[in-house]
């Protein structure tokens, strides 16, 4: 064995790994340059804040989704879950508000309910998957239908709307800014940082990665696989709860179209960001960049009219594939 020979593929592999890690970021930078060239308004602070604020929902969910996917699972129900939580919150707050409780308290309780429901739904998923031994794909496909059906039933097919005063009291949670940056962006950043620490600096994070790489080996290593899995789904549910409590004040309503296709956007953000769909490895930074990238694409398409609106979805699909191509070679 000659050392040079073993070293050179190593070096090139390291290079490729580093480059593939940069894939989504390079894609995002390229998109931003393209956006600025197409419409100078793209590069304004206001537009940047708009894009980041609307990314917050999908981004926060995608952070939780990273854990689930990395442990080898999947959750298809997040969009429907968000819709049902939004609807339940509104019904709950309206009934409390009608009882004459102070609006601030009602809003705080509503936000609490959102987190509790998210964690509870996630826990139910986790238990069905681990104790019930049903494939995560099937469990969450089932709840995808169940959650949305219940919301539609609550709303009678129409929209559930938050009462006037509550809506006014609640709206700063979405619309207000701190140091010029909207609240949802702050929360998105906080969730992303917390997720990063949890994934890379704690035993739980390492266990998640170990289970995703090889569940059997993880079991032999005395990792409590079932518990960790249930916790990943609860974490995702909690993230959905956080996203929903930011979403409700935006329009003050929930309808059967709320959260439609969020699951695909969140999964796409995770995978575009470089997390392997089969589990085991991934990066939280990639997920955040992936989520931003997805909303930048539609933002640019809205800011220009060079191509027919009929082709918008094709552009989105094309960009996603190109970015995934940039980070190939990590399987």
């Amino acid at each position, binding site marked *: 064995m000659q050392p040079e020979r073993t070293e050179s593929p190593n070096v090139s592999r390291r290079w490729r790994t580093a480059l593939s890690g940069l894939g989504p970021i390079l894609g995002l930078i390229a998109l931003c340059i393209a956006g600025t060239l197409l419409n100078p308004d793209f590069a304004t602070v206001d537009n940047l804040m708009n894009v980041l604020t609307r990314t917050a929902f999908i981004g926060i969910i995608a952070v939780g989704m990273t854990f689930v996917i990395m442990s080898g699972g999947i959750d298809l129900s997040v969009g429907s879950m968000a819709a049902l939580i939004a609807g339940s919150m509104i019904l709950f707050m309206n009934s409390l508000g009608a009882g004459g409780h102070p609006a601030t308290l009602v809003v705080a309780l509503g936000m609490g309910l959102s987190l509790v429901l998210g964690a509870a739904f996630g826990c139910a998923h986790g238990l069905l998957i681990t104790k019930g031994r049903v494939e995560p794909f099937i469990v969450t496909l089932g709840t995808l239908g169940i959650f949305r059906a219940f919301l*539609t039933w609550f709303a009678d*097919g129409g929209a559930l709307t938050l009462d006037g005063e509550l809506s006014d009291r609640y709206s700063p949670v979405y619309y207000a800014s701190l140091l010029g940056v909207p609240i949802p962006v702050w929360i998105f950043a906080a969730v992303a940082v917390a997720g990063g620490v949890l994934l890379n600096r704690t035993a739980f994070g390492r266990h998640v990665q170990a289970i995703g790489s090889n569940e059997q080996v993880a079991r032999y290593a005395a990792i409590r696989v079932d518990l960790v899995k249930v916790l990943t789904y609860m974490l995702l549910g909690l993230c959905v709860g956080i996203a929903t409590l930011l979403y409700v004040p935006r*329009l003050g309503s929930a309808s059967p179209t709320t959260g439609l296709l969020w699951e695909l956007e969140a999964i796409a953000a995770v995978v575009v960001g470089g997390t392997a769909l089969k589990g085991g490895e991934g990066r939280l930074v990639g997920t955040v960049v992936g989520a931003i990238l997805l909303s930048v694409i539609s933002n640019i398409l*809205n800011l220009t*009219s060079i191509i027919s609106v009929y082709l918008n979805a094709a552009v989105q699909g094309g960009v996603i594939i190109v970015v995934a191509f940039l980070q190939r070679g990590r399987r």
Partner: protein
Amino acid sequence: MKSLIRVVGAGVLALSACTIFAAEKVTLGVAIPTATHGFTGGIVWWANQAKKDLEKAHPGLKIIVKTAGSAPEQANQLQDLLTVNKINALVIFPFESASLTKPVAQVKGKGVYVTVVDRGLTDTSAQDAYVAGDNTAFGKLPAEYLAKRLNGKGNIVMLRGMPTTLDNERYNAFMGVMKQHPDIKVLDAKYGNWNRDDAFKVTQDYLTRFKQIDAVWAADDDMAVGVLKAIDQAKRTDIKEVFGGAGAKGMVKTILDGKDKRIQADVSYSPKFIYDAIKLTAEARLKGEKLPATTIIPSVLITKENAKQFYFPDSPF
């Protein structure tokens, strides 16, 4: 077959006026899409309302309402209605035009009287009657209204629904009127998918892109909600008019109360037309009569003066 029934029906009518109601029992199947957004929610509500009202008024009438989540499901329901429920009249709001034409034609071939609502079939010989809202007026009335309010001069942005023939009809009607007003610039038209969230995002981007907008044609009351929120957030005061469409109860209430000066008018395209279609079909069939080949439920401009007659607080839409 159908004419045979009518001959028999007429014969019975001639023989004895007392027995006709017993003989001419009508079992009417209603096939509609499930409630997935405000408008279809309204369709389901009005269909059930029709069942309640009409079955009470006519003892010889039975109405069966089926909702479907997809075109194949609706086709299966048609077969069930025919073989299990033995319907002799059908009111259908087709999930899709093309894929339901054959299944409906089969039902009609078995002697069932078919009324098609809203989305026309690709082969009109598969239906006996067609009842629809007026999509041309849905686009034309807001265009004329906005042109008048802007005194024939200004910038308009618009939102579209989803890529469908129905949306194209509305869009073309709107643009047709705008051609006569060369000083009104239509800046752009993007899809908001008939939902509040997408309309919110598209409007945010319009506001970033265009510094002077005089009016927004939101083309749907749900989308108008998202449009208004986005304008409020950007604190823009240049937009004088926001025009929705369909006459959802929240929007009609806003007009009625004068709550928002940007919302002064709307155009009716009420899901109530399913109620009208069921009523017309049931009553005609009870008498053994036919409906005219095409019935268009007119779309009218809703303003503060007439808003009251379009306000249905119990309907979910």
